[in-house]
């Protein structure tokens, strides 16, 4: 059954990986520096910001999808860009979901040893940028699990991507929306098979990632 739709399945896996890769990349590029900043500096309202990111970690994907949908809809503020129902807009919606997770996790990781590390760095007269980079590299293993969490949330998410992506065949259909579609068609066992493929993809990515971390340790 899976073999018969080989070409389409490969295409769907391709779109899924492309979407998840960019969602993860952009979310981490935005979220990690902010998380480090929160971890290493103290200012008024910091507690509020951390609570906000915690709150947004619970943002229902459909709501994130709705907000992005309304922004990019024909009559929306950014409607003229005409990117609704594309992979790009799916990535944007996912970033809304994932950035708070990355900020919050990065903050809680870096704030644990940040006081000591910052003292050490200040004692050696490191610049602010050098200190920030040090905080990232010192927490590399833990931050890698943040990247994997971001990837996991991205690849497993369905509510936002089906709303803004539209689950269009050959274009914006990803594994999760394909699973949803097969479920709606009543092909429950096929849907489950797709779910197992999705898990296998996740598993492979995790294995590759763990190798990457190991090699770096030397």
């Amino acid at each position, binding site marked *: 059954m899976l073999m018969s739709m080989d070409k389409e399945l490969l295409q769907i896996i391709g779109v899924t990986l492309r979407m998840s890769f960019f969602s993860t990349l952009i979310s981490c590029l935005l979220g990690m520096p902010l998380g480090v900043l929160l971890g290493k500096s103290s200012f008024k309202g910091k507690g509020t910001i951390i609570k906000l990111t915690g709150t947004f970690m619970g943002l229902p994907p459909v709501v994130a999808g709705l907000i992005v949908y309304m922004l990019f809809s024909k009559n929306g503020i950014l409607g003229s860009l005409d990117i609704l129902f594309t992979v790009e807009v799916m990535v944007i919606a996912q970033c809304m979901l994932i950035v708070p997770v990355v900020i919050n996790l990065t903050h809680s990781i870096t704030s644990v*040893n940040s006081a*000591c*590390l*910052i*003292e*050490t760095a*200040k*004692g*050696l*007269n490191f610049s602010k940028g050098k200190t920030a980079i*040090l905080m990232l*590299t*010192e927490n*590399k293993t833990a931050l890698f699990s943040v990247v994997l969490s971001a990837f996991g949330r991205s690849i497993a998410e369905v509510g936002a991507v089906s709303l803004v992506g539209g689950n269009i065949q050959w274009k914006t259909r990803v594994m999760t929306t394909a699973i949803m579609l097969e479920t709606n068609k009543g092909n429950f066992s096929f849907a489950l098979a797709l779910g197992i493929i999705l898990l296998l993809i996740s598993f492979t990515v995790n294995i590759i990632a763990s190798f990457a971390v190991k090699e770096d*340790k*030397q």
Partner: protein
Amino acid sequence: MIKLQNIKKIYGERTVLNIDGLSFTKGETVAIVGPNGSGKSTLLKIIAGVIKSDEGTVETNSRMYYLPQQNIPFRKSVRKNILISMENADDKEIRCNEILAELGLANLADKNAKGLSGGECQRLALGRVLINEGDFLVLDEPSSAADIEGTEMIENAIRKYKDKTGCGVIMTTHSPVQALKLAERVIMLCDGKIVEDGRPEELLINPKTQWGKKFISKWKL
């Protein structure tokens, strides 16, 4: 020159540091002694500019290098720990090897610093500080984790650095021997206040305060 005036540091209800005036000149080695919780580390952090005092001023235009009490090795090789701490120089590698040899870390140079023992970590942390030239070294218990041999290496390295650069050294210690051996001036802290400040031999023979007498009496020299 480092000049402290009317320094106060308060944590919650507790005034951990309360100093009217204190100054350090380049070239002198000062040991700060006192029991746990007397405010030694806080004083060093304020001098080094790592934390700010709640009241008062620290006046200085000296370049300082500070070694915190807690040593964190960076997640890199021992050599890279030193190199990353060094400001730009032409003879980076040579100086790095020198300091590693001096601190007995040469044979560990390519090991990951996370695998070092407590004493080795402390020597590495000191090495990161000593690799640059500053006007003052501010060292918080630089040999607290070291064995006899390690302590000797650390003390020699500090002395050599001082001879070479003519810098000032401000350090805390729980070792009376170390204080007497390295310092030309000993400051005694109690409950955040300075109770004694003078040459070590004077202090040893003739403490000015009751409290100083009591503290010295516990030194088993």
